[in-house]
């Protein structure tokens, strides 16, 4: 059983996707249990797999027993073992949490929704687990196509935003495919390990450099790296809560993983950082991404949209960290994949709860929320602290590595950008807290007998099924923070090749 984990992780949700769709026709009640069971098996397998990788080292799984480079091989090492766990756990928790809001928002399309949901997770897990460059493209498109569907389910401006996302997403994927085509011309292989084996002799080739750059551009479009981010804010804002809390934490982060995989495994750090010599400009681009993401977030008056711009800034963190070209920065980028996925899930789940109860996420809708929904807001505060980077939540520790990396690389611009974005996050989140905490203002705030007559809205909290996963993720944020040392030493440090210092 456990030797089949790599296949199970992808195969179970794939089959479940079909099953759920059929179940949707027969009896809608079956959709949720099937989907959650499949995601649960995925999560369980990926955790099992990660521990096996930690104990035994890299696991190679040959699909159908065909040897690479002819067959498709799944390689699970420390890097994607970790990302697998994040993806599957996030998807699992969100599936449980969003049950009520799905029933609420589109009762007629439950089958279709869960089918898309599970297929999207399949695609994302596949991207992470596969060791074949072309296979990655196909899975990329599976994840993307289902993602468009999930975003468009919200109605309103959802379909239009999804369509714009689709244009950009397709261009991004095509660029990636084109880059892989050039690599194939040069190496005659599509297997990542195989390509990496052949490439070193070709590092001076212009075609290989072009392939690398084209792949990077494709991946950047897909991860919404500023200024290629234009599709993201609307798509994530107008998606239904259940979709946005799946898409927002995972898609950009998985694309960062792909970028790091290309840098570390397909190419080598030696090629990416030294031969190509484009690290400096890319880190400066990341600086611009961080600053612009932060500034654009400031002007938004809708909580969900504000958070989407924070995602744009966070993408800058990770791209910058990865391209600093040193071990610490790379550690920070990989750690931030984990942390950012978790904290984005936390805040988006909280927003989901708020939208479920208040039917909106504009700033005016948030008044008095600390009274109305104290538990949801409690978890939201934890998520916000993590995004600001307050210890002991995990966001602080990845920021630590990123800033350390910037200092070691002598790139003080990146350090300043990170600090600046933390400060802007303080402003952003405390503006939300202020609205939830102070408003609506009472007419009379004098002392004496009249004192304390605040208009106190009655408590109106989201259902328990939405709260429990939210609390779980909030606790995970702190635990991951406290166990950062173990995660870095046992997983991330092993995942980064020795050559990178």
């Amino acid at each position, binding site marked *: 059983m456990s030797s089949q984990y790599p296949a199970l992780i992808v195969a179970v949700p794939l089959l479940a996707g079909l099953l759920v769709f059929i179940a949707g026709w027969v009896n809608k009640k079956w959709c949720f249990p099937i989907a959650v069971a499949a995601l649960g098996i995925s999560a369980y397998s990926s955790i099992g797999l990660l521990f096996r990788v930690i104990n035994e080292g890299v696991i190679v799984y040959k699909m159908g027993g065909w040897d690479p480079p002819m067959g498709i091989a799944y390689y699970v090492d420390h890097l994607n073992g970790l990302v697998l766990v994040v993806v599957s756990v996030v998807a699992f928790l969100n599936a449980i949490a969003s049950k009520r809001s799905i029933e609420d928002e589109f009762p007629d399309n439950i089958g279709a929704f869960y089918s898309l949901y599970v297929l999207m997770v399949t695609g994302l897990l596949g991207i992470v687990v596969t060791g074949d460059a072309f296979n990655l493209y196909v899975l990329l498109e599976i994840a993307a196509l289902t993602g468009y569907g999930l975003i468009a389910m919200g109605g309103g401006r959802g379909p239009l935003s999804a369509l714009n996302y689709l244009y950009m997403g397709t261009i991004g994927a095509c660029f990636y495919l084109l880059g892989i085509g050039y690599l194939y011309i040069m190496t005659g292989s599509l297997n990542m390990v195989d390509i990496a084996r052949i490439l070193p002799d070709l590092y001076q080739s212009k075609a290989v450099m072009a392939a690398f750059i084209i792949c990077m551009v494709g991946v950047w479009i897909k991860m919404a790296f500023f200024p290629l981010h234009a599709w993201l804010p609307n798509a994530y804002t107008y998606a239904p809560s259940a979709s946005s809390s799946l898409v927002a934490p995972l898609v950009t982060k998985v694309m960062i993983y792909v970028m790091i995989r290309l840098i570390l495994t397909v190419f080598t750090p030696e090629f990416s950082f030294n031969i190509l010599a484009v690290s400096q400009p890319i880190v400066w681009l990341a600086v611009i991404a961080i600053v612009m993401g932060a500034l654009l977030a400031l002007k938004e008056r809708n909580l969900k949209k504000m958070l989407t711009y924070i995602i744009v800034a966070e993408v800058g963190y990770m791209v910058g960290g990865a391209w600093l070209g040193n071990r610490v920065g790379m550690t920070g980028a990989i750690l931030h994949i984990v942390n950012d996925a978790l904290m984005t899930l936390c805040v988006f789940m909280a927003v989901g709860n708020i939208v479920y109860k208040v039917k909106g996420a504009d700033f005016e809708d948030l008044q008095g929320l600390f009274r109305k929904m104290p538990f949801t807001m409690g978890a939201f505060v934890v998520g916000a*602290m993590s995004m*600001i*980077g*307050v*210890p*002991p939540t995990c966001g602080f*520790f990845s920021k*630590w590595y990123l*800033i*350390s990396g910037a*200092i*070691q690389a002598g790139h003080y611009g990146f*350090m300043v950008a990170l*600090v600046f974005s*933390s*400060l802007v996050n*303080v402003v952003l989140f*405390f503006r939300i807290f*202020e609205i939830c*905490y*102070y408003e609506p*203002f*009472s007419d009379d*705030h004098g*002392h*004496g*007998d009249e*004192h*304390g*007559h*605040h208009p*106190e809205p009655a408590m109106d909290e989201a259902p328990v099924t939405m709260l429990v996963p939210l609390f779980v993720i909030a606790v995970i944020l702190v635990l991951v923070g*406290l*166990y*950062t*040392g173990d995660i*870095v030493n046992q997983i991330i440090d092993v995942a980064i090749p020795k050559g990178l210092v």
Partner: protein
Amino acid sequence: METIVSIKPLLAVLVSLMVVPILASSRAPNVREAWTFVAAGVKFLIVLSMLPIILKGTEIVYTIAEFVPGAAIQFRVDAFGMLFALVSSSLWIVTTAYSIGYMRALKEHSQTRYFVFFAVALSATVGVAFSANLLTMYLFYEMLSFATYPLVTHHQDKEARSSGRKYLLYIVGTSIGLVLPAMLICYNLTGTLEFGKQGFMAGAGASKGLIGLLMVMLVFGFAKAAIMPFHSWLPAAMVAPTPVSALLHAVAVVKVGVFSVVRVITCVFGTNLLLSLDLGTIIVFAASVTILVGSFIALSQDGLKRMLAFSTIAQLSYVVLGVGLLSPKGMTGGMVHIAMHAFGKITLFFCAGAIFVATGKKNMSDMVGIGRRMPITMTAFFIGALSIIGMPPCGGFISKWYLVLGALQAHQIPVLVVLLFSSLLNAAYFMPFVYRAFFCKPEEAMFEDTIKEAPPFCVVPLVVTAIISIILLFYPQPFVRLASMMVQSITGA
């Protein structure tokens, strides 16, 4: 230095966090407040139980998690941390009693939230006291910033919001904008953040300019110390309920600030390094300016709490000044002043609150003749004021004495002048008010000639702290002992 591993520091930090769920869930005020007392008492006892060990010269260590070498979440109880923990945990008990009286008398809303965040703030305070390295200190420092925000803005009106903004802007802005980068640069220079008795930056081999820059970033970055120009959050934070102000000024926030600054000077850079680079002067200069300017502004205030706030700004810089002198006596004086000022200032704030509870007055010009109406309160106020001025029979005399000796030891005559002149200023802003409260002409008095004090829950705590302020003159142990132990281990003398 002998060390033992014990979970006690962690317990001392966590005990107030552990009652939070009980506080938050209980609907009955009596149960809630009883639990706060239990937590405060237990916390004090745990701290106290470590005192003999520390006095023997042993240090207590406990590690929670190490995430990179040299930067762990770790506790280490030394003499200086013990001093601060003693002050804050003992004063929490008194403040709790006072809070009950004050909050109930004014029928404040959201008292549950108030007690919950009070408990969290105290956890953070003791956490700062027991931190073994800069990272842990930063962790608890930030935790304190965010835990005190709902306390400062308790009234939830527009005024509270704008003060809250100012509070966050200064406190969090400096800690993220200055301390965080400085901390990381230090770490990347030395590979450790562990507080050392000679300072872990001593062997970094960085240039004087870089060390100076880092020192400025760290000293000013811990803006809870309210060194000018990062002081104006403190008067703004006066919108908070009075027990919170007392907590801010005497127990937790500002003391955490100066504590952190002292730690930075002594344990991050080390006295030898700063002496050899002659960087103490910057600190002394900033502190002297703060003392004088703060005192002058206090002189011009009419709001009692605002006047006390500026007085606090000035007094905090005594601590920074003493340690910045880098002479053994000066450092001892600075550290002892943390304790002495705490007891004196908390008395003053309790009195201000008691007057507000009993009469609803906030401005000193409306309080002429208050001494006849509230003699106990005003007597306590007088004692507290004496302690701040630094006159016998109060504890403040001891710390000021050490500070003067320290200035002489460091051959800093201008500092001596600053100290003496500011004492005059202290007297100038306290004494006229006290005088007019007791000895005004009958026709000037604004109150009837009947004694009407605040509720006992308000009065008893302020009497207790006033008495302690006096006792501290005669038994300044263990504070002086702890401070001189710390100074000995720093200077090696």
